[in-house]
Structure formats: structure tokens, C-alpha cells
């Protein structure tokens, strides 16, 4: 029967394909990101140990090495525990110097993961010890740099100017950490056991600094132990450490969370929100199809009556109708699956979006099952009501009157109206949600990061400790490099900073305010940046009070610090902070020093554009050479056009230093909002399609209504209804459904607005302008959708009133 109504079948299948396709695409993303287990054996036993600041219940803090080591040693509920942190390396000695992203891991990481190298071996427990230099290569580095040498194990390679022995090569599909860019190699935490070459001998290695929180962890629960038991055990160990080390571990607890949560915990609510949005879209599509089926059922009552008169049972006819609706939904599902395959591929190749495991999104068996289930369910649920309605007829009049209006009663039109109201209300929820997200996006984009990102190029250089470990050497290197860079034609200014704003790297430290003694564990915290004196001018960060750094703030001069406005407001309210002294824990050698605040600068959104600025303090690199700086250059030209000249200058100073991560600051700003932008636009697209479907549904129902009411309209015209009367009559009917849908949608949105709260910026989830705007938009579009059928209605010939048959 469907083949005999190709137009009807095509519209229904396309509508369902849109809904199913969008839903399946998002489900395939949810499947890949949230539902797939971690790619390691017994993934449910994998957990992450995190620090908890008990003052503000802030979860997810990194651990210090001593705390990690104590937890690993004391835990009775963890079978094993490993720690890791990212580490950049320069690989030399085998072709051009190459910057590689690596991971420094405790030697037992591969034991925890139960991952085995494809070549060689994993680290042994003794290879965490000081002065041990061993490395495991990724499959891709092994192939690209070492020509897939099958005898690579045991051979030395040069990293950071030091010789490391390759002990293994991981398989091609191995990736760790899962939420970071693929790592080229893994070394052990042996490097944490020694002090930086050239540092004063009284410095402690990082493995002994309990206040330095920088390690992420992954552990495996003992067999039979629940997460809750292990969490309690971990908290008890943390409590013991807090007592034992009140200065560093005061207000610090520890807890466990499933590793999968550590990986995707932040993105879960966002993806579930998108899945909810797309489910709304599917419901709209289904309601549309149900309406089509209802309209068709009304036109087929004579056919049904003939079938019944021929002896067909109503159950048999119900089965036939349901079969037809399920066939429709399966065809829609199949087409939707094609859309999903395309959509999923598109998502997986999006470079700007940083959602963990997104790239592995694919249409697998689970997704296929989901699509099949959704298709069957929609076919049955939305086919059932029209099918039951189709069977509610009186046999004799249906046969006698040719089916015209035989049983076209109020319940038919009521159900159709209810479906349209349902569609409109879902559309309102979708539109308001998407509008709020998009408006938030506009607010975020309009946020100033606190510096002028246009015309800024940034890049990194990794200075190997072995040659630049002494602060004086790295200070001199950057001074000379910046001088050279300033000489490049087109460069207006050059400076350097650690860490770069919006780069996701941050350093936070505690500090003491002179004259306000507090317990060590109660010391306030500030974000910290080590900068070249020209940093503020290069970045166009305004000086609010005091002065910027200059050449006089030398290594052996007065120790100084510049703070941002948030810092000044928070710690020196109603006071002039200039001339005050603080002691942040930022020394590159020896004990921390009391520093004089010499300036206050404008706030910079270092972490994200939508978070309020944090208290921030800047120290001259000359006085805190704690690592490699990111260089920033300002130019009027295309920033990336400077790169060849930059590489030339760096190469001239040290041919073994690769320039890496060259990006404009505009790129950093864009990347920092890419995920939110993507989600907002995605929801916007769904809302747009939802609106389109709802309006098409309304148009369809109104067209059908006009067709069904032709006789009645003819009677009205015959007794004197003018064109305007008929126009108003039809518009009133369509707009009544629309307004009912809008009101229900607005109330529904109010009910679920809290879901959105965490995703909004600069706008309330109940923003009245958005609510009014969406209502007006929908009313306007609905009016347009009703107008065409209404106009057609005005052309009804009153002669139809005389036609009886």
C-alpha cells in the first residue's frame, strides 16, 4: 500500500530519517565518548585518585609525588596505583631536532593498565629510581623516526640532550592518556627524583616536595573491593597525611572516582543535554509522521470498511497498519543511519573540538541496535494511535458515503491538534535552549580576554635542562633570543611568559602576606606567571597602578611582583597594594623570597573566557626562571608569516632547539571556546530543524484541515462568509494550536531550565527576552505556515454546499 502512495511515503520517511539520523549521530558520539569502556582489561576496576580541598570541596586537584607515593604504599584497597604528568622533549641525534609530546609516568603504569608493548618490555619497578633513563616509544614515532627498527629495544636515543635507552614500543592502537594529544613516548618519573642540573644543592627534588601538586593518577581496585570501600580507605590515608604534614596537606583530602569519570565526567552533562535536545527533535519528527498517518487513515476508512465487510478482523487490519508504520519507520531509520554514518564521520574529523574519544566515534553494533530499537519503537508507538483511529468507523455509512467524512469526528481532529501542540511545545523548548546557548556564546565571544589577541604569534621552545638548567643560562638565552626576534622586520614587540594564557597550562602557588601570619596550610593561593619585562606591553595588558617590570628588576635586585586587579581587590581591599610585600612560592633556587608589589595590571582571562579572573601574580623571569617560556610576538602582518624568520633566529642560537606549537593568540582564544561553540551551534541546528519540522507539521495539518473542511467552508461562504472571515477562521484555528504549544513549551522550558544553567554565561536560563523572542518567532513562522492553507480556504467554491455526494 505504501508503494501506491509514494509522496506520502517519501515525506514520512524523510521526516523520520531526519529525526533518526540526528539522534543516531549524537548517540554514536555518546556511545564513543561516554559508553565505551576504557580500552584496557577490566576497565571497571580502573580509578583515579584526586585531591580534594576540604575548604571549598574542590575535587580533582592533582597530587604531589610524596602524597601519591604514600597513598600507593598505604592503600589496602588498591591493587596498584600509577602517576603521570605531561612532559615535552626534544629528540635529537636522529635527523632534525624534533619536539615530541611525551608523558612522564611511574614505572608501574603499564602494570596498572595491563598494557603490553608490541616490542621489548614495559618499565620495571626499579626504573623509577634516580638517574635511570629509559623510554618506551609509540608505534608512530618508532615508524616515523626509527624506520620501524625491529632491534630498537636496548638502543640509546637522545632526549633533552641526555641518552635514554629504548626498552619497548607500544602497539599502534595504544594511547595514554586518553584525553590528550597522542603521546610519542613515555619515560619514567626517575626525572623527578633528582634536582634540576645546576640548581642549588639544597633544593629538593620534586619527588620530595609535598606541596607541589602536579601528578594525575590511575589505579586499579583490588578484586572484590568496591569503589566506595576504596574511597573510604583513601580518605582515611589522606586524613593521616593531613595530621602528619599539616603545612602541606592541611585542608587536603583524597578520594577516588571511576577513571571513566575522570576522563569524561565534565563532558557527560553536556553530551546528555545534546542527546536530550536531539531526542526532542526525534519526537517532533515522530509526531509529524503520526499526523501524516492520521490524515492518511482518515482517507482510507472506505478501504478499511471494505476489508472488514469482506471478513477481515479488525485485529488483522490493525496488524496491517502497524506493519505499514513500522516499515515506514524502518525505512526512515535506514536512511537515518546513512545520515548518521556521514554525521559521525564529520564529528570524528572535527579538529577544533577537544571532546575526549570523539575521534573514535563510529556506527558500531550498539549504535545499529539503538537505531533499530528507536525505529521499531517509533513505528509502533506513533503508528498505533493512527491505526486505532483508522479502525474506529461505522461500517455502513463508511461504505455508503464513500468514506467522505464518514467518521471524521472530533477525536480525529483533536488528536491531530494535540500532536501539533506537542510538536510546537517541543520546538519552543529546543529553540529557547538553543537561543540561550547561542546568546551565551555571543556573550563569551564579546568577552575581552584582558589582552589584545590580534596580531600576536606565540610559540614554544623546550630548553633542555642539561644545557640550560641553570637559571642564568636560560635567562640569558631568552634575553638574547628576544633581542634577535625584535629585529625581525614586521615584529613590533617580543616578549615571553610561562604559562601562556588560554593554553590550559596554569601554575598555582600559595603565598604569605607580610604582616598577616597564618598557618602554612591556610595560606591563600594565587595563579602565577613568570614573564619577560615587555610582556604587558606586547600583550597590551593595561597597567592600572604602579609600574611595569624593567631592567632594574634583575636577578640580584629587589625582588618584585606585579598583581592583577582581582588579586588587589581580594587581598588588599580599600588599600593601595603598591609597596606591600608578599612571598609566593615561586623561587627557582633557594628559599622563597618576600617580594614587593610594584604594580597592578588589568585582569586577564587566563583559563577560560567565561570564568571570572583569578588572583594572579607576575614575577620577572630573571627572578623566577622556573621553566621554558612561551614566546609572544606582536606584528601588524599575518603573525604566522613570521615563522620562517623566527625559526631562523632560534636555529642560529641553538640548532638543536625546535620551535613548536606555533599558533596565533586568536587561535588560542578560538580554541578555548571551540567546544562550547560547537555544542551551541549543534543545538541551534537541531532547534532549526525542529522548528522546520514543527512548522511543516502545522502546515500539513492546516492544509489537511482545509481539505477536510471544504464542504463546511463552502456552506459558510454560501451563507455569507467573506474571504476575510474564512481567512480568520483558518488562521484562528492554526494559531490557537500554536499558542497552546507555545504556552506549554514556555512552562516546560521553565521546568527544565536548570539543566542549562551550568552551560550559560551572561544570561539567565529564564531570560524573558529570549522567551518572548522565541514565542514571537514561532508565532510568526506558524502564522506564515497557516496563511497558505488559509488563503486556499478563501478560494473554496460555495457550490460545494450544493454537492451532496
Amino acid at each position, binding site marked *: 500500500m505504501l508503494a501506491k502512495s509514494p509522496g506520502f511515503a517519501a515525506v514520512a520517511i524523510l521526516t523520520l530519517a531526519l529525526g533518526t539520523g540526528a539522534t543516531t549521530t549524537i548517540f554514536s558520539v555518546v556511545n564513543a565518548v561516554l559508553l565505551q569502556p576504557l580500552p584496557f582489561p577490566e576497565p571497571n576496576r580502573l580509578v583515579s585518585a584526586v585531591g580534594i580541598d576540604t575548604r571549598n570541596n574542590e575535587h580533582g586537584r592533582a597530587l604531589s609525588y610524596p602524597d601519591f607515593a604514600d597513598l600507593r604504599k598505604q592503600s589496602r584497597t588498591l591493587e596498584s596505583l600509577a602517576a603521570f604528568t605531561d612532559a615535552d622533549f626534544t629528540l635529537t641525534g636522529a635527523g632534525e631536532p624534533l619536539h615530541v609530546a611525551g608523558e612522564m609516568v611511574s614505572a608501574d603504569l603499564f602494570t596498572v593498565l595491563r598494557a603490553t608493548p608490541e616490542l621489548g618490555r614495559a618499565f620495571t619497578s626499579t626504573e623509577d629510581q634516580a638517574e635511570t633513563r629509559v623510554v618506551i616509544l609509540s608505534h608512530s614515532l618508532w615508524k616515523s623516526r626509527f624506520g620501524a627498527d625491529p632491534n630498537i629495544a636496548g638502543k640509546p636515543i637522545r632526549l633533552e640532550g641526555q641518552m635514554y635507552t629504548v626498552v619497548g614500543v607500544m602497539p599502534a592502537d595504544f594511547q595514554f592518556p586518553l584525553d590528550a594529544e597522542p603521546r610519542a613516548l613515555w619515560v619514567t618519573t626517575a626525572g623527578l627524583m633528582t634536582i634540576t642540573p645546576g640548581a642549588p644543592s639544597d633544593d629538593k627534588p620534586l619527588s620530595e616536595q609535598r606541596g607541589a601538586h602536579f601528578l594525575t593518577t590511575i589505579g586499579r581496585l583490588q578484586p572484590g573491593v568496591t569503589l566506595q570501600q576504596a574511597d573510604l580507605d583513601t580518605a582515611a590515608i589522606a586524613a593521616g597525611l593531613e595530621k602528619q604534614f599539616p603545612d602541606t596537606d592541611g585542608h587536603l583530602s583524597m578520594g577516588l572516582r571511576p577513571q571513566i569519570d575522570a576522563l569524561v565526567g565534565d563532558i557527560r552533562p553536556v553530551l546528555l543535554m545534546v542527546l536530550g535536545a536531539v531526542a526532542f527533535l526525534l519526537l517532533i519528527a515522530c509526531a509529524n509522521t503520526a499526523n501524516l498517518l492520521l490524515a492518511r487513515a482518515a482517507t482510507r476508512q472506505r478501504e478499511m470498511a471494505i476489508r472488514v465487510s469482506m471478513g477481515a478482523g479488525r485485529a488483522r487490519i490493525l496488524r496491517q497498519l502497524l506493519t505499514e508504520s513500522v516499515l515506514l519507520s524502518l525505512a526512515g531509520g535506514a536512511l537515518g543511519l546513512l545520515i548518521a554514518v556521514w554525521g559521525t564521520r564529520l564529528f570524528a574529523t572535527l579538529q577544533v573540538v577537544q571532546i575526549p574519544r570523539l575521534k573514535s566515534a563510529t556506527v558500531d553494533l550498539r549504535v545499529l541496535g539503538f537505531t533499530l530499537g528507536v525505529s521499531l519503537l517509533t513505528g509502533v508507538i506513533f503508528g498505533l494511535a493512527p491505526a486505532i483511529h483508522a479502525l474506529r468507523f461505522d461500517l455502513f455509512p463508511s461504505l455508503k458515503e464513500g468514506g467522505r467524512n464518514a467518521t471524521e469526528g472530533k477525536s480525529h481532529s483533536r488528536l491531530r491538534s494535540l500532536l501539533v501542540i506537542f510538536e510546537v511545545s517541543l520546538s519552543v523548548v529546543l529553540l529557547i535552549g538553543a537561543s540561550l546557548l547561542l546568546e551565551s556564546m555571543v556573550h563569551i565571544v564579546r568577552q575581552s580576554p584582558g589582552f589584545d589577541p590580534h596580531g600576536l604569534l606565540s610559540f614554544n621552545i623546550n630548553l633542555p635542562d642539561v644545557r640550560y638548567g641553570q637559571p642564568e643560562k636560560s635567562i640569558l638565552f631568552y634575553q638574547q633570543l628576544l633581542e634577535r626576534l625584535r629585529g625581525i622586520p614586521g615584529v613590533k614587540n617580543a616578549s615571553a611568559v610561562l604559562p601562556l594564557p588560554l593554553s590550559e597550562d596554569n601554575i598555582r602557588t600559595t603565598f604569605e602576606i607580610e604582616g598577616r601570619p597564618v598557618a602554612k596550610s591556610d595560606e591563600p593561593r594565587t595563579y602565577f606567571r613568570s614573564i619577560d619585562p615587555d610582556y604587558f606591553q606586547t600583550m597590551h595588558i593595561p597597567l592600572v597602578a604602579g609600574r611595569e617590570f624593567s631592567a632594574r628588576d634583575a636577578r640580584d635586585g629587589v625582588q618584585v611582583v606585579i598583581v592583577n586587579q582581582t588579586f588587589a581587590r581580594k587581598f588588599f581591599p580599600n588599600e593601595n597594594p603598591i609597596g606591600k610585600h608578599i612571598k609566593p612560592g615561586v623561587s627557582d633556587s633557594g628559599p622563597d623570597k618576600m617580594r614587593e608589589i610594584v604594580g597592578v595590571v588589568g585582569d586577564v582571562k587566563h583559563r577560560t573566557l567565561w570564568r571570572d579572573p583569578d588572583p594572579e601574580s607576575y614575577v620577572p623571569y630573571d627572578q623566577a626562571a622556573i621553566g621554558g617560556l612561551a614566546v609572544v610576538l606582536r606584528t601588524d602582518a599575518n603573525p604566522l608569516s613570521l615563522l620562517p624568520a623566527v625559526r631562523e633566529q632560534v636555529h642560529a642560537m641553538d640548532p638543536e632547539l625546535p620551535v613548536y606549537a606555533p599558533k596565533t593568540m586568536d587561535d588560542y582564544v578560538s580554541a578555548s571556546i571551540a567546544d562550547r561553540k560547537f555544542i551551541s551551534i549543534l543545538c541551534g541546528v537541531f532547534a532549526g530543524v525542529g522548528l522546520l519540522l514543527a512548522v511543516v507539521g502545522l502546515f500539513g495539518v492546516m492544509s489537511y484541515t482545509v481539505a477536510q473542511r471544504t464542504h463546511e467552508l463552502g456552506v459558510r461562504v454560501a*451563507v455569507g462568509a467573506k474571504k476575510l472571515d474564512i481567512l480568520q477562521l483558518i488562521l484562528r484555528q492554526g494559531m490557537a494550536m500554536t499558542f497552546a504549544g507555545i504556552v506549554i513549551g514556555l512552562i516546560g522550558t521553565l521546568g527544565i531550565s536548570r539543566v542549562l544553567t551550568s552551560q550559560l554565561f551572561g544570561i539567565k536560563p529564564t531570560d524573558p527576552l529570549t522567551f518572548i523572542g522565541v514565542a514571537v518567532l514561532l508565532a510568526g513562522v506558524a502564522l506564515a505556515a497557516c496563511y497558505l492553507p488559509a488563503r486556499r480556504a478563501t478560494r473554496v467554491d460555495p457550490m460545494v*454546499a450544493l454537492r451532496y455526494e
Partner: protein
Amino acid sequence: MADANGTLIKMEGVKKVFYTDEVETHALEEIHLEIKKGQYISIAGPSGCGKSTLLSILGLLDSPSGGSYWLNGQPVAELSTSERTRIRNREIGFIFQAFNLIGDLTVYENVELPLTYRGSGAAERKQKVQNALERVGMAHRLRHYPSQLSGGQQQRVAVARALVGDPLILMADEPTGNLDSKNGEAVMELLRDLHRNGATICMVTHDQRYANFADRSIHLFDGRITEETQEAHASA
């Protein structure tokens, strides 16, 4: 108002041609007809003779292909759609074979419809609807829906709707066609009563028994008036 002779309707040489797929169908040919105020005229004839086509032109539901038509002294053959609508609303009352009541409206609302489209005030509407329904003996069913009424009752309501605007003429298209003989008789009696009280009625019927209720009968065959008779009882 009728002209000085009391002529309400005058047709001269009216014809109607339908064109379908290059085929010309002459539904009406050379119709000359005059209806005076207060007359009760029936148009009879076999199926397909053009009765309903003539009624639709008389009732301004359709326009003739040729000839002249004056309604109440005004030439109406060439009027615009909106003018015809206005005249239909104010000067013609329709009674249809299938009653043509609107199922979603109550009896009161159905009868009120012509007045609503005319733009009458609520109080006037209420009074006129009440009067019309009383005239047809349906005032006690104001709030009922058509589906709650018998066929005869529905046609009474339809008659009330035709009457409510005080039209110059009632056009009835097979008003008993959907009724059993008892209800058919009752409706015909109602129309006769209305005529006795001054209503001008033009009724299409194929049933000679009901044609006899009129005081003048026109017989159509193949689109032409073939016979016209005056009923003796009509003047009684």
C-alpha cells in the same frame, strides 16, 4: 425591495455552459424566468436536467455563462465575488438537501452564522436567532449539536438559519431529500407556513408530491424550461 410589479427575480436568456476536457456541456439554455415577491415556486425535473445549476445561479453561488439576471431590480450576473457574497448574506437564505449544519457548532451558533458574517451586534443576533428558532419550533434545542438531533430537526435548524437574516427569498435544494416521508412532510409544512406568512420560496425538487406544495411549478428538461404550471391551491 421588489420592483413596482412585485418582481423579485428576473432572468432573460440565461445559459450555463461547463467546459471539461474540451467538452462543452450546456447545463442551462435560454432560461426566462420571473419570480414575484411572495411566490412559492418549485423547480422540478429529472436528475441532470439542470435544477441545481439553476438554483445555484439564482442563489448567486454561481454565475451564468450568458443572459441577464436581475435580483430585486439589480443586475447581478456580472457582480464581483464580494458583492455576490454580500447579497447572498443579506437577501438569500439557503436550505440544503444535506442540511449542511456545521458539526462543531451548536444549534444557536449555526443559526447565528449569517448574522455573524453580516456583522450584526450580539443583542440583535440573539434576538433574531431566538425568533428564527421559535418559528421552526427548535428554540428548546439551542445548545445541542447537530449530531444530537434527528434529520428532521436538523433541517428545521437549517431552515431557521436560512430565515434568520430576513432574506428576500429562500432557496431550497431538495430540502426533503435526506428525510423520511414523515419528516419530509413536516419540513414541507413548515415551508408552506413560512410562505403563508409572506416568504418567497424557490425550491428544487424531483418529487412531484412536494412540487405540488408550491403555487407555481417549473419543469426543466435538458436545461430548458419545458413546462410551467400554476397550482390551484396556492392562492387559497
